[in-house]
């Protein structure tokens, strides 16, 4: 290509007539790069390869929910007591999440704030929260020290994490949802091995102090200092975590989780949790409850399978040691899990790019209470038609008889749409 250009260039430069003007043209052409722009059909420039110490970003979300109500349910009576919303209620929410990070050498600082305006049938509210604000220092590649507010999510389950004692409740159908952090100080140490069946070994040790009205208030009394430890192994191609969590006013909690790929399209995972003398709701009458203490064992077993048509199947069985199988299920869950019953099945089938529509994923999920046979059926979709714009929709349809968990939900059905823009 270069030789061809040079040859053409030479022929453009006569030696006698109009020497000056041609010389100018020659000089102009000489200044051109040897490869004219667009010579290749590919663009090899990657400006992102020059990172900067500072980074800023965020996303805004607009969410609308329509509640088609059933005024004969216990949930309706509890939620709308003393009001009269009729058969429909509408919620709207606008959320801005803003992040800033700074990195230099082995130090890093990050802040993530969340600002939400929510409009419901009852009221309008503003919430401004700091989800993350922490400092990290990595004196060596295998060691990191953290201090501040940072999210913790332990366990391998999608819908529930019985061994994730520090976790915030999550929405398995909105996996990119930001979760509020815990205030902690901690150290993370990793060691790799090149020989043998143990490939990786990691220890995460955390202390989580409690300060009234400030942080970690659900972990005990003011002045308490809780401790958490996670031992991670990659052993025989299997992820294994041993989890410990304890505090002066918090039950001793021991957990185990695992995950393993069985084939190129099949993975299995599970969790087991034990809590000594944990608070357990004790229904005494009607909608009132008190709490007793008892040892609890919870567990989860799940799998994920992908077929040749890009359909993903996720199934999980969850046994909630703090759960019950009767009347208490109408009450708000007192623990970190979303569902207060005893035994559940979560199933989700998602189809990537159906009808050859790129960046569209459709899905249907169901949470089934295995004790009262009620369920929440939820079809939905996620579509990113243009870069950084994500459109999500889902319809929650609680199904069940009277006196069942989902049969007593306030909504007959609940369509919801949320749009996110990332920047």
């Amino acid at each position, binding site marked *: 290509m270069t030789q061809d250009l040079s040859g053409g260039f030479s022929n453009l430069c006569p030696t006698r007539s109009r020497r000056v003007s041609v010389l100018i043209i020659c000089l102009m052409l000489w200044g051109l790069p040897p490869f004219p722009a667009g010579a290749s059909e590919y663009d090899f420039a990657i400006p992102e390869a020059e990172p900067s110490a500072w980074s800023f970003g965020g996303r805004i979300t607009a969410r609308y929910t329509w509640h088609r109500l059933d005024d004969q349910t216990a949930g309706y009576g509890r939620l709308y007591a003393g009001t009269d919303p009729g058969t429909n209620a509408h919620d709207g929410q606008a959320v801005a999440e803003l992040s800033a990070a700074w990195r230099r050498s082995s130090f890093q600082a990050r802040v993530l704030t969340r600002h939400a305006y929510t409009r419901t049938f009852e009221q309008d509210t503003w919430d401004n929260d700091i989800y993350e604000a922490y400092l990290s220092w990595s004196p060596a590649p295998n060691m990191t020290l953290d201090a501040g507010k940072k999210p913790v999510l332990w366990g391998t389950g999608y819908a529930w994490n019985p061994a994730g004692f520090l976790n915030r409740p999550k929405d398995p159908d909105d996996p990119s949802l930001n979760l509020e952090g815990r205030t902690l100080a901690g150290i993370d140490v990793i060691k790799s091995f090149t020989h043998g069946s143990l490939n990786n070994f990691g220890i995460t040790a955390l202390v989580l102090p409690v300060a009234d009205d400030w942080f970690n208030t659900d972990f005990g009394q003011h002045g308490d200092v809780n401790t958490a430890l996670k031992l991670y192994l990659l052993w025989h191609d299997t992820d294994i975590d041993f989890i410990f969590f304890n505090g002066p006013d918090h039950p001793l909690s021991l957990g185990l989780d695992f995950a393993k790929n069985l084939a*190129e399209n099949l993975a299995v995972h599970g969790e087991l949790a034990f809590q000594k003398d944990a608070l357990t709701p004790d229904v005494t009458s009607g909608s009132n409850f008190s709490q007793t203490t008892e040892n609890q064992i919870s567990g989860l077993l799940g799998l994920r399978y992908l077929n040749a048509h890009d359909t993903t199947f996720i199934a999980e069985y969850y046994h909630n040691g703090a759960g019950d199988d009767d009347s208490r299920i109408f009450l708000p869950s007192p623990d970190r899990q979303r569902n207060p019953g005893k035994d559940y099945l979560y199933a989700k089938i998602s189809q990537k790019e159906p009808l050859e529509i790129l960046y569209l994923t459709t899905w249907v999920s169901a949470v089934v209470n295995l004790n009262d046979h009620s369920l929440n059926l939820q079809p939905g979709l996620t579509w990113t038609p243009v870069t950084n714009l994500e459109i999500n929709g889902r319809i929650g349809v609680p199904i069940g008889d009277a006196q069942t968990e989902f049969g007593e939900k306030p909504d007959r059905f609940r369509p919801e749409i949320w749009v996110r823009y990332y920047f």
Partner: protein
Amino acid sequence: MLILASPLLVSAQETLTGAQILEQVDHNLQPGNLEMYRKIINIEPDGKKKEFVLWFLKKDMDKIVTLFISPASEEGRATLRLGDNMWLYIPNVGKPIRITSMQSVVGGVFNNADIMRLDYHVEYDVADLAEDQGQHLLDLKAKTGVVAYDRLKMWVLKQELVPTRIECYAATGMLIKTLHFKEIKDIGDGVVRPAVMETDSPLYQGYKSIMVSANLKKRDLPDEVFTLNYMSRVKDLR
């Protein structure tokens, strides 16, 4: 014409076995421990494009980390491959989740195995060596059942020992996709190899995905970088 920066370069005049050719192909495509940037461009039938940029780290023959740099909706997502194990880390969500090689993190024709591919000779045995259209034609068979494609047909330039085309087949014999290697050039640190990999698939009629490799640097990183606990901090190494 083409000078490959390889100490293991074998004279094209020698008679090479299939295994030697495959090993040399691997060395020419991903020579040793390195970092590089990759741009993935998904092209729809109507010409609409979507781009992703990721940072790619490789160590030894079984350790790969990728970190998504852009667009903003994907920024901070990281994937880790250790042998046959793969994980996806989504920022703010917490613990990385296990993924399988046949899934796709970015949509389009590329799946995880294409983006986090180990050396071919680690995953495949040479079942047969032939000649076709003046090139070596390797018939490759997966060593284990956890590899994304059961068989590969790989056309390799005899002089340069880099592939020009790879057809990927499922265990049923169905053609899943075809990879086309183009634009042999120096992509950094003197490494001369195809800088572009295009792929199309009978399963995605009209769609095309392109992966451009650039800004390659030889880099040795500790083993601990290629671990689950490190995925949230990979960005600190850039």
